[in-house]
């Protein structure tokens, strides 16, 4: 009887976690498309690394106790925001890639150093290094899964609502700025991105969460030439892959969720690139064919 109860609890928890990861993956994918179009892919990576010192700061403030999802969200967002601010500050006097490298190594080093120090303190409830870096969604408690679903739904809905404005800013930022869009929109976009990354770190890991953001965007480019269609493809891919990764992780607990999701994404991207290359459907192939159509029309 006891075994049956334990099995059912595991079963329902996996269902909730699976749902949470699917919605989170979908929201991450949609944000990822805009990140790629706005050329913010590496900034998202920097932000993800910056969540670790923020989370550890929260644990320290709580005296070593395990943080609630709200604290995880706040700590992660503060850490990521500070890292992005540092990146922005570095860019004023350095090239973009140098600033990016410095911000990445700083956030990674600060996070790793603080983690090593805190793990030696008595009474500190920290997950293992592997779980923090590579994620372990299957072991996520129900309350955390519900928080992840809530934050992901909010992020997804807001991003979809803002999509036309974001498209306008990406295509022609100065004309958009003239009409009052621009700075505030970028701020809201970053807030959504940081919130999702902060909440997704526990499930997918500090190092891997950015893969859930960027991989679907890259794969979706193989399947359609139009931005709205790419968003739909990315959302679909983003939902399916992490869900499969959760099942893998639940079946084989040694497999971390984030790492398996990223490997599955990489496999799907490789297959997509191969298929698109073979059928001339890739972004370049499609462009070339459509450009020829346009040239014919002009002639």
């Amino acid at each position: 009887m006891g075994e049956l109860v334990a099995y059912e609890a595991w079963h329902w928890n996996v269902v909730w976690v699976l749902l949470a990861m699917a919605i989170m993956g979908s929201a991450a994918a949609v944000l990822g498309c805009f990140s790629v179009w706005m050329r913010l892919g590496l900034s998202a990576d920097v932000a993800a690394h910056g969540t670790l010192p923020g989370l550890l700061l929260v644990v320290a403030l709580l005296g070593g106790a395990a943080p609630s999802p709200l604290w995880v969200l706040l700590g992660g967002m503060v850490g990521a925001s500070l890292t992005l601010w540092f990146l922005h500050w570095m860019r004023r006097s350095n090239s973009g890639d140098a600033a990016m490298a410095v911000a990445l190594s700083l956030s990674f080093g600060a996070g790793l150093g603080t983690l090593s120090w805190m793990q030696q303190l008595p009474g500190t409830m920290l997950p293992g290094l592997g779980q923090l870096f590579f994620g372990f969604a299957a072991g996520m408690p129900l309350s955390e899964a519900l928080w992840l679903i809530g934050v992901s739904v909010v992020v997804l809905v807001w991003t979809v609502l803002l999509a036309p404005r974001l498209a306008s800013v990406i295509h022609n930022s100065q004309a958009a700025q003239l009409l009052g869009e621009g700075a505030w929109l970028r701020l809201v976009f970053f807030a959504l991105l940081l919130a999702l990354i902060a909440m997704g770190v526990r499930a997918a890991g500090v190092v891997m969460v950015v893969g859930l953001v960027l991989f679907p965007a890259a794969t979706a480019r193989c399947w359609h030439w139009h931005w709205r269609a790419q968003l739909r493809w990315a959302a679909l891919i983003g939902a399916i892959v992490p869900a499969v990764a959760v099942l893998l992780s639940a079946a084989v607990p040694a497999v971390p969720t984030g790492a398996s999701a990223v490997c599955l994404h990489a496999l799907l991207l490789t297959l997509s690139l191969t298929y698109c290359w073979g059928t001339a459907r890739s972004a370049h192939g499609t462009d070339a064919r459509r450009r020829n159509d346009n040239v014919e029309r002009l002639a």
Partner: protein
Amino acid sequence: MSLEVEALDVRYRGGVSVLKVDALRLGDAGMTAIIGPNGAGKSSLLKAALDLAPRQGEVRFWGQPLADVRHRVAYVAQRAEVDWSFPVTVREVVQMGRFPYLGWRKRLAADDHAIVDAAIAQLQLDDYREALVGELSGGLQQRTMLARAVAQRAELLLLDEPLAALDSAQRRSVLALLEALQADGKRIVCVHHQLADLEAHFSQAVLLDGELVAQGSPSDVLEAARTRGWLSW
């Protein structure tokens, strides 16, 4: 007067002044060209007027601050400043011109669709409405940006080098469309590099070189440039 500038001082990071203008009035005639050598502050004038560049001084459109008349002013940026790689269609770009009139979700009503269709037809883009704008020729891309301005129902069009990197046929086509827009009642202010067609297409010109050097009819302004030996740019 569409655009009035007083005590304008444009300084980018580093603090060096790139343009100082005591007083300038633009846009009372149909088409005005802003000319001058590279680095003269031509683009900076437009950007500073539109709050896209840091500035000091007073800028007014029809006697009002920009914030009150944003929808009446359209800006067509230099081609290099537009992200042509973003996979968006001609129709969607033109629809963006309706954004100032739309609600929070930016959903177009039937009237907006009709205005967008009319703008596409006016700029002769019917065959390309569903084409990706990034894959079109430079001339068609400029026409798309002008169609967006037309869909916006802007009265004043500020264009930053709209003829740059276009071949002669495309240049003639865009100039003809600009003249048609001007005949339609639009006021056009345009940063321009081809001095050969200045007198043929523009009714006013402004010569800049870090400051206002001359303003008036194209022939007078060209004469001022010739006097200073600046016609080599």
